[in-house]
């Protein structure tokens, strides 16, 4: 699909609207549902049943999943699984798997180097794409030597599992189309930016909820949102999110376009957006008062998600250390 900038932006807005209403009705969409909405195949080439668009569209879904605090295999299977397959040299094995992802028949997840202890959505995965400098080994859960252990997670909306694949158990090694270290770098950037999008969406939801609440909650005979301390806290939330949005947009564009400095944009977006989201969700809890601390209110769901996101695929300090290697 070849589209101009303005058209692409319009398509993304439509995608966002559709995603928002779908997730409002079903905050835990199955892999089949994700596929029938066309999301798992967004970046899969059209001839394999996908939409052939870019990471910029994938990023829209990530953001909306965060906004809805949705439970899904999207990060594991579409962002990282399909993302990894797309970095491989074309082959029948690769193409079959990509087509199956687009159709919702397969949910392969990527096991990035050093990340096997906490792999998103691995427990429900049909395939494990073990990423190593030499290429990708495709392992199937249940086979000899392959173990996948679902982990308990404080953030109940996230699914993490410990994966181990011992030597001989895997299938053939599929080679990367490009330089392996660059590919692995790109996959890490993808992961980081996808999580940043999730945090941005989650934090925007928290600001929106908080603003709506303080407009109606009354104390001392007036809406608490008319108290300056509350107003200024909300203003700070908005400012932090506006900055996050700029950084995330720049990172999404860079990753989607394969820019050489995409890792810089990714590190900035990940470190800022994920830290800001924790602050915003924490402030949301504070400004809701006692209600905000209840299980029922759901604010804790966002706070926990934001907290986990902040640590996933590189802490803010870790990303800043990478940036600092340029000074």
């Amino acid at each position, binding site marked *: 699909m070849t589209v101009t900038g303005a058209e692409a932006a319009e398509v993304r807005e439509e995608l966002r609207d559709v995603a928002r209403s779908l997730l409002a009705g079903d905050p835990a969409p199955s892999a089949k549902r994700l596929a029938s909405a066309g999301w798992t195949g967004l970046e899969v080439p059209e001839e394999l049943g996908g939409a052939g668009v870019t990471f910029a569209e994938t990023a829209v879904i990530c953001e909306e999943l965060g906004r809805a605090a949705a439970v899904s295999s999207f990060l594991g299977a579409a962002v990282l699984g399909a993302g990894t397959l797309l970095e491989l040299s074309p082959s029948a094995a690769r193409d079959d798997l990509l087509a199956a992802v687009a159709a919702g028949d397969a949910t392969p997840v990527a096991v990035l180097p050093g990340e096997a202890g906490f792999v998103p959505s691995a427990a429900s995965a049909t395939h494990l794409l073990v990423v190593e400098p030499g290429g990708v080994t495709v392992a199937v859960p249940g086979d000899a030597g392959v173990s996948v252990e679902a982990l308990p997670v404080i953030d109940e909306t996230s699914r993490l599992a410990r994966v181990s694949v011992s030597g001989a158990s895997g299938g053939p090694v599929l080679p990367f189309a490009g330089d392996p270290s660059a590919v692995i770098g790109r996959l890490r950037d993808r992961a980081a930016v996808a999580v940043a999008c999730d945090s941005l969406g989650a934090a925007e939801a928290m600001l929106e909820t908080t603003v709506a609440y303080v*407009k109606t909650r009354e104390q001392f005979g*007036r*809406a608490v949102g*008319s108290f300056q301390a509350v107003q*200024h806290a909300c*203003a700070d939330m908005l400012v932090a999110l506006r900055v996050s949005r700029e950084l995330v947009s720049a990172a999404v564009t860079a990753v989607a376009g394969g820019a050489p400095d995409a890792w810089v944009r990714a590190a*900035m977006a990940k470190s800022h957006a994920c830290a800001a989201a924790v602050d915003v969700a924490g402030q949301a809890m504070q400004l809701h008062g006692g209600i905000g601390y209840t299980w029922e209110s759901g604010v804790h769901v966002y706070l926990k998600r934001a907290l986990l996101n902040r640590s996933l695929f590189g802490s803010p300090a870790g990303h800043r250390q990478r940036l*600092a290697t340029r000074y």
Partner: protein
Amino acid sequence: MTDLEEYRQSVRRWCADHVPPDWRARQTGVTGAGFAQFQQWWFAELRSAGWAVPHWPAEWGGGLSVAEQEILYSELAAADAPRLVLQFVAIHHAAATLLAAGTPEQRRRHLPAILDGEVWCQGFSEPGAGSDLASLRTTALRDGGAYIADGQKLWASGAAHADWCLLLARTDPAAPKRKGISYFLLDMKTPGVDVRPVRNAVGESHFCEIFLAGARIPAENLIGPENAGWQVAQQTLGAERGLTMLELAERLGHAGFRWLVASCREAGLLDDSRVTDTLAGFETEIEGLRGLCRSQVAGTSAGPADASVVKLYYSELLQRMTDFGVTVTGVPGFTALAKPASSGWESGIWPLDFIGSWEWTIPGGTSEIQRTIIAERGLGLPRGA
């Protein structure tokens, strides 16, 4: 090469030829007159390149596209060129006011004169009217073909060098606060106008008190309708914010961040991970700020309180960065008693830069006022008591 890339190269070449390499040293410790002379020279240089007023309409000598202005500011910042300080009010506020509310005659009288170096100041604030500007008490009462102004203005930046002043004064003392104010163009040479510099916290005398005692303002120097001054001021105050902020963000991103990294390197702190963590955090925030400014200028993210978001974020980031500069340079940083005039707010003399950062958190609506605007206009929260 695209046209824009060619344009960037031409600005870069011009900067290499025209920015005096030693201007910082020459501008350190100068007198007010030395500063003003240098500013006029630099303004004329920019003017002959066609870049003194890039944001003005083409018919008055501007007409650069937004993309070209972005490039211009970014290259000037990268070349660490002097800033236009003296002409700031003239080319931004005065011009915006003349273009929005001036008569053809007023525009013809002043816009070309500004290009020739006419200096303006802004006489809005008073001892009793700061954040609550509408409570101002200076009066200008009609007397035949003129208005007679009496009162006191405070904090007028650059007034000691100014030829003209944008003046808000009460023309109908009986009307409700915002209804009785008019907007005037005041010739600073008018008898009854007395300017007294006030020394600021950095030690400079850039802002002034202006005393008005029976100063006659000809009626043709009223701008906009009588008693509509508040509306005119509201309309034009934020008019140039976007590009001004873009310039400042570029400066913070180029020279500002470079000085900060250099200070850390000189202090041998670049292998301290706490220091590099802070630096990378600032770099990230600056990138976010630049993005905000670009979106605002391009109009792609126009929220009702965008100008406030940018002003608040810039000023507090500047304050945190300069504070960090102070901690990095430590005691030795305190022995420099002057920073170069004509520099930005991040000259690398960190203790003075840090003190000077309140020049951004206080004027033009304090940070507290900005947060209230963001909450009420940006987020729609109910008005405070």
